[in-house]
């Protein structure tokens, strides 16, 4: 088993590339990232420029997704809003993943009292709905982008700790870890060279799923007025603005909602595909 586990990483990514669903997910994600990063090139209109003469317009050649009640171009707002959504969507799980993996691996490898203490805190944090933690942090630290990232990282950290710890516990049983120790390697090297590479799969799976959750939660917090602050657009606060002008135009709500759904869908499916790709028993079957 352990012999097949080492090359599993490269073949897992290969399997993902060969799989049509995985490929489509990667393409959607690449397209969304490109649109967000190069937003000013694709959408010339200033996302915050108001023009009351052109308020609440339906989609047209000039404004692809129409305009909102202040006459702002929705297409431009969605693309620029995507920068915030994807930035938070990726950075919160990344931060949580780095911290959570470190803590989880150490807890699983060391065991004992430290492990029990860590798991007690993890259980407590896991019991709280992530959105509630987000509101709690926003209430304590004020609304805004940085604090949303902190809040979401706090909500995700226990999930990474749990998976990193569980994976470390199962890897630690493997004979090759004992062999590595027997050759006189230090604990730190054993963890870095032998434990980490073998648990990276499940962590990437959780990471990808958390990006989906993170995009959804950022949108929800911004919708509640606790995330990205106006006039800066984000997918959540575009819907919030749109709710005040539902009779005028449904387009901001629909366009932004579809953007969130698409992004969440792509990262969620990618997570599922990664999960299949990293599972050697399933890969052999296909």
């Amino acid at each position, binding site marked *: 088993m352990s012999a097949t586990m080492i090359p599993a990483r490269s073949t897992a990514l290969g399997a993902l590339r060969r799989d049509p669903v995985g490929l489509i997910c990667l393409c959607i994600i690449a397209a969304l990232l490109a649109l967000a990063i190069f937003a000013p090139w694709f959408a010339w209109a200033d996302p915050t420029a108001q023009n009351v003469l052109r308020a609440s317009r339906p989609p047209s050649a000039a404004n692809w997704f129409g305009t909102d009640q202040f006459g702002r171009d929705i297409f431009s707002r969605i693309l620029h809003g995507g920068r915030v959504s994807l930035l938070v969507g990726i950075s919160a799980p990344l931060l949580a993943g780095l911290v959570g993996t470190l803590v989880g691996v150490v807890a699983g490898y060391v065991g004992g009292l430290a492990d029990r203490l860590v798991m007690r805190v993890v259980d407590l944090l896991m019991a709280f709905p992530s959105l509630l933690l987000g509101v709690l942090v926003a209430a304590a630290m004020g609304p805004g982008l940085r604090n949303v990232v902190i809040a979401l990282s706090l909500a995700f950290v226990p999930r990474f700790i749990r998976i990193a710890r569980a994976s470390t516990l199962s890897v630690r049983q493997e004979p090759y870890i004992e062999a590595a120790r027997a050759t006189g390697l230090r604990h730190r090297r054993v963890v870095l060279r032998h434990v980490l590479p073998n648990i990276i799969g499940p962590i990437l799976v959780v990471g990808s799923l958390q990006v989906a959750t993170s995009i959804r939660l950022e949108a*929800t917090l911004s919708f509640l007025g606790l995330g990205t602050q106006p006039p800066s657009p984000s997918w959540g606060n575009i819907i919030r603005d749109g709710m005040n002008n539902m*009779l005028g135009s*449904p387009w901001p709500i629909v366009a932004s909602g579809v953007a969130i759904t698409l992004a969440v869908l792509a990262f969620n499916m990618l997570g599922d595909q990664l999960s299949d790709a990293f599972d050697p028993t399933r890969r052999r079957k296909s």
Partner: protein
Amino acid sequence: MGRYILQRLIDAVPTVLLSLTLVFAALRILPGDPAVAMLGDRAPIEQIEAFRHKVGLDQSLPMQYVNFLAEVATGNFGRSLANDTPITQLLADNLPYTLELTGFATLISLLIGIPIGIISAVAHGRLPDHVARLFGLAGYCIPDFFLGALFMLYFGLHLDLLPVMGGGTGFPDRMLHLVMPAATIGLVMAAFLSRLTRSAMLEVLRFDYIRTARAKGLSTWLVITKHALRNAMIPIVTGIGIYILSALSGSIAIELVFSRPGLGQLMIGAVEARDFPIVQATITMFALFVVVVNLMVDVAYAVINPRVRTGEA
């Protein structure tokens, strides 16, 4: 059984304390000052000092902690900064709306999600399964507040079928106002629940006793309901706790979408209005909810899994 429940109740005491401490500490120890968070960082220093004094943030932390626990124990959370209303009154006014929303949403999700999950598992790999899995995926990807807004646009504004705002007055009107918000949360939860039911059923349907039951000549229906579902219920009930909590947190955004009164509306309004005592009281209420739901799941788990109550597990 009674003993097991008593044991769980005793176990819950430290959990309650820890959760309360988490809320207390988060609002005070996290970098950033709640007074500054509430008033904005350009507020003059005197104004911030006055605010801190008014809500008791200028006292020592242990003193604040004792006061906070006393507030929770007596249910007396002080008065709103904005209009001096007793917060206990505000909580009592808003709580029923959130409870009925969460309750109905959970009911809808059970009625839709579990049957879809069962059909999906029984028809594994065939068309009904694919449709059900699509439903499950959609529920995960479409944010609840967006779905609520779509319902509101179509059923409320376009077809003019259902009321779009408020909580309603009088029983029939109140139920009418509940339809769209509860259906929104219920459908999203049903999607999750169908996924969970499907995988739990698939797990169970593999076992030998299912084949034995079929070989005995029992009808498919009887095998599914009596043998498979009963065993699949254990992960489902454990999962339901998580879903009730996600319905509860979903109610925050949905109350805002439909301008419904409720705990979430009260909490978000208080964060915006910088009403610190209400913020602390509402978050505490949500935290207590979390503990109570988890406790209920533990008890329900014991009811359906006899091994837990006799202590074999």
